[in-house]
């Protein structure tokens, strides 16, 4: 919409504006950038939202004429080859959700040496010439754990359901979680498992944990959340406080399940769209910080502010595995309908 409006405006070529606005209009009007994106996990709600956010933001910016997305299930070798393909396709910027912190360094260096802006989103890379836009995962672990420990009055046993072992997001969240634990010495772990961010595996683990009869007072999850609450309800187990992510299914539970106390910690997939904005700002010659880490919010259903945030975000129509943090203020400009439509420039 925006995009075509600008076209029309420039199409009339209003002479009066020419001298005063020539530069900015030209910069905005010419949707000339070719941007590439690379992702290595398909079918995951969070990653799909990230891709849609990249597309929606590229379209909404009005500055991107072409978006090439390499979106498939692959590993480091596959992503290196995807990035090479994007470089050869002549892109001016690459948004990449890296499969590993250092495996891509050579190809990223190659890209930035050629003048291509590389923005890593979600996870960091160690190559210093790349930009980073990500949720602060250590804070993610910390703020949710702190809420839970506070809720338990600083005393109790927590079932700790982590993500995938060895990933940087899981390690960072664990650092935050342990920091909160150090502040609440009365908190112990009733158990610790890696869900691998796999719903079926998380369901199996919680069911086995419930069947084992080990006493627990709260559950911290790394984002496999609504399934855990469902397991508690199905088993008729006590509804202890649960920490999850801002996934649509879990937020709906926080809004609707009687007696459930819980908190959703935001982890927006829209860092993808924010990465597009970051790249466009760098291309426009603006001063941009190398690393932007956004601080996660805590939406807890036990305070009026939290309830308001949950009510505002809750949308039962959205796929239960999509995070509801679908936009990031100052960094994304698309609407909710636009990200759901998941259309990029030229689509």
């Amino acid at each position, binding site marked *: 919409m925006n995009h075509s409006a600008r076209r029309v405006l420039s199409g009339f070529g209003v002479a009066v504006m020419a001298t005063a606005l020539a530069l900015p209009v030209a910069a905005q009007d010419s949707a000339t950038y070719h941007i590439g994106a690379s992702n290595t996990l398909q079918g995951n709600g969070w990653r799909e939202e990230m891709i849609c956010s990249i597309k929606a933001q590229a379209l909404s910016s009005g500055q991107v004429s072409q978006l090439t997305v390499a979106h498939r299930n692959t590993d480091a070798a596959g992503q290196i080859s995807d990035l090479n393909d994007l470089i050869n396709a002549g892109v001016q910027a690459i948004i990449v959700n890296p499969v590993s912190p250092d495996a891509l360094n050579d190809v990223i260096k190659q890209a930035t040496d050629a003048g291509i802006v590389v923005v890593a989103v979600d996870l960091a890379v160690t190559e210093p010439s790349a930009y980073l836009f990500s949720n602060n995962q250590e804070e993610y672990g910390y703020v949710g754990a702190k809420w839970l420990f506070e809720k338990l009055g600083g005393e109790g046993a927590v079932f700790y359901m982590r993500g995938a072992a060895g990933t940087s997001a899981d390690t960072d969240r664990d650092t935050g979680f342990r920091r909160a634990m150090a502040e609440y010495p009365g908190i112990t772990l009733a158990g610790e498992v890696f869900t691998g961010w796999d*719903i*079926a595996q998380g369901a199996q683990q919680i069911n086995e944990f419930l069947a084992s009869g080990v006493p627990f007072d709260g559950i911290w999850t790394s984002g496999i959340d609504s399934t855990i609450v469902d397991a508690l309800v199905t088993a008729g187990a006590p509804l202890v406080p649960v920490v999850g992510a801002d996934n649509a299914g879990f937020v709906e539970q926080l809004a609707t399940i009687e007696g459930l106390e819980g908190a959703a910690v935001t982890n927006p997939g829209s860092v993808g769209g924010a990465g597009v904005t970051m790249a466009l700002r760098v291309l426009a010659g603006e001063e941009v910080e190398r690393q932007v880490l956004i601080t996660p919010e805590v939406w807890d259903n036990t305070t009026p502010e939290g309830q308001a945030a949950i009510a505002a975000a809750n949308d039962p129509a*959205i796929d239960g595995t999509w995070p509801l943090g679908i936009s990031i203020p100052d960094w994304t400009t698309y609407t909710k309908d636009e990200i*759901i439509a998941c259309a990029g420039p030229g689509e």
Partner: protein
Amino acid sequence: MSVVEGTTSSPPPAWRTADAWQRLFRERPIVPLLVLLGALVVLYQVVQPGTISPNWVGSIIRNAVPLAILAACQTLTMLTGGIDLSVGAVASMAAYVMATLVPSQGPVIAIVVALAACGLAGLANGIGVGIFRVHPLIMTLAMSLVVLGLMTVYQLIMVAAGSRVPPEIRTLGGGTSFGFVPHNLLLFVPLAVGIMWALRRTGFGRLLYAVGDNERAARLSGVRVWQVLVALYVVSGLLAGVAGLVYVGITNVATVTLVDKYVLTAVAAAVIGGTSIFGGRGGYAGTIVGAIILSLLTNLLTVLQMPEAARQVVFGAIILAVAAAYTRITSEA
């Protein structure tokens, strides 16, 4: 020779000879499997005293049921010397299509459409394997990619459609009675009995063994092998769909990759259960015990709080050891 004959006046009892063991493994693979299962339970009791309870047994069985259904796909296809690696994608498709159609179409139509889609995927596999003679490994692996790709597109269309798992599916897949009897047994017991009956007592079942044992001989004796294979892969697709619905009943959240991680576990369950990947030998009873063993093993490794990497190594090593032991013990040489 004559010396040996002369000195074997008191041969060791039959149960102690390697021959007898081999025969036992070959003809009744379920006996040693049950022994292994019992050993694991004892090990569990030693490692984690007091955990074993009706609740715990129920939870292990509830998790083993969908795995056993997925492993049925492998057992049946492996009997013909094939394999079905598309079951993860197909089962996930059943779960996701069903959940996304429920709000607009209601549960009955949603389930029918989901299973029909699985049947179609199976039909495509069957046509590829049976008529175009594509190797089942390649055909079904490719099919899993096709299904995942289609589902990724479908997911974007349906992302704001709302998805719901109907209470009937949740009760059947994830519910329990008296606190420990999993409802999914209501579905599974008749299904398992049906599969075992079909393998032993029906012409179709015998044809699977015949095709796997010696396809050429089967063809020469008048079997239309391609028809058997097409029907087989359709059945496999439908079974995968049923497994997907049971999984989503447990998780209450459908994704297009929900069941992906269980494909190789299902293959392992069939192999541990004594079905030969070369075809012609095996059965479903062993597979069921194999699925229970793997479900128990997964739980045991979780309880032991092993680091994830070590868990994967141990899990892989145990499967490998059991499979190798089988090959050795049951080898026809």
